[in-house]
């Protein structure tokens, strides 16, 4: 009896995994052939001279768009499944009563896997504070969550390679940990709006339901539909602009403005990056093309981090629960951290 049950369960899992496995094989087949196809199309089908700028631009575009979209679909699917294991409520429970330093580390790491959108920043902030998660730990979470997201990581990996993606993730996490720690040490609780500490909510009666593996796979598909459905157009536009830069902008064009010998390039790119609210999807392909034209890695990293991690709309949303001195401290510390990363990589590379 027991045996047949186990068998049935096993059969169920194989059945559930069959479709994803087939899709993965199909995915691999396309992924490994895009470059060939892009070349074939440019040179043999529309018969462009291989050495023209236009052929170069077109080939770049035809190769990068499907490559990045494929990577995105795969990673968003996997992250969608991972995220089904983490809910904000669970994260809060883990962070409750954690001491400052260890709490900052855990909050930053959890920030990368907990489902988060900037419109939920307020309820999340309030939920954390209310259940006794320290202010600094809450901030570590709020800094890491938008800065290290699957879209940014996929694009960095696809367009810059795994080293840059890894550097971005590691330094982003460090910024979140350290900034949150500093905010915690500064004891800025008095700059949180007074009503925040007064609200008493009835704890949610939403019980954690046992989620089946099938539902988790389903949430992977849903994530792909929702996220890729929303950003594919930005990726195509971003890569189109990037391809134009790639083909037509002269070498070393950016060296003067965003090169490493220009000391003000890092603070300038942060200054431009913070109010510039763009999703990672549109900005990263363009930045990649600039890097190719002589911009330095540190400057480029600083620019991307400030665009993705520090956004004006989110800061304005936070104004509802934070007083101005705390907002300025938060933005100031994170911006300083980003600049430090920028200078560091300009020196190393």
């Amino acid at each position: 009896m027991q045996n047949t049950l186990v068998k049935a369960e096993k059969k169920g899992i194989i059945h559930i995994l069959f479709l994803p496995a087939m899709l993965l094989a199909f995915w691999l087949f396309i992924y490994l052939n895009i470059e060939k196809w892009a070349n074939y199309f440019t040179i043999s089908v529309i018969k462009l001279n291989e050495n023209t700028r236009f052929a170069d631009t077109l080939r770049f575009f035809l190769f990068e768009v499907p490559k990045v979209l494929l990577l995105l679909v795969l990673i968003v699917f996997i992250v969608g499944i991972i995220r089904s294991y983490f809910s904000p409520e669970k994260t809060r429970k883990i962070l409750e009563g954690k001491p400052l330093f260890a709490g900052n580390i855990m909050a930053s790491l959890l920030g990368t896997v907990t489902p988060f959108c900037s419109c939920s920043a307020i309820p999340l902030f309030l939920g954390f504070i209310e259940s006794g998660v320290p202010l600094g730990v809450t901030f570590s979470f709020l800094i890491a969550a938008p800065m290290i997201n699957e879209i940014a990581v996929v694009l960095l990996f696809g367009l810059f390679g795994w080293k840059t993606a890894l550097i971005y993730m590691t330094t982003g996490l460090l910024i979140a940990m350290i900034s949150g720690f500093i905010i915690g040490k500064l004891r800025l609780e008095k700059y949180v709006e007074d009503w925040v500490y007064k609200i008493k909510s009835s704890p949610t009666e939403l019980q954690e339901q046992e989620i089946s593996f099938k539902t988790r796979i389903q949430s992977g598909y849903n994530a792909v539909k929702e996220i890729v459905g929303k950003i594919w157009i930005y990726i195509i536009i971003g890569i189109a602009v990037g391809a134009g830069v790639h083909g037509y902008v002269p070498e070393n064009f950016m060296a003067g403005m965003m090169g490493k010998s220009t000391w003000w390039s890092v603070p300038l790119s942060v200054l431009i990056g913070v109010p510039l609210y763009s999703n990672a999807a549109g900005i990263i392909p363009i930045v990649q093309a600039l890097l190719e034209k002589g911009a330095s890695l540190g400057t480029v990293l600083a620019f991307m981090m400030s665009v993705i991690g520090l956004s004006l709309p989110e800061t304005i949303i936070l104004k509802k629960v934070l007083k101005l001195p705390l907002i300025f401290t938060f933005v100031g510390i994170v911006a300083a951290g980003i600049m430090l990363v920028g200078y560091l990589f300009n020196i190393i590379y």
Partner: protein
Amino acid sequence: MIIKVLGTGCARCKSLESKVREVAEAQGVDAEIEKVTDIQEIMKYGIMATPGLVINEKVKCSGIIPNDDELIQWFKEC
């Protein structure tokens, strides 16, 4: 039945509200549907992600847009 959609006005909150209205109408559910946008009011329900769905003062879900079947199930239960 009193249904409340909790959300400060993000895109997903709006799509949840219209979905709830649609499904309720299609099912012929006699419900009063209300949109709660005040953050302090929302926080009384203790949710940590928007949108939230409250039926007869009970939180049904938060941070997700449930599918039609789940909605119908919840309507039936109440």
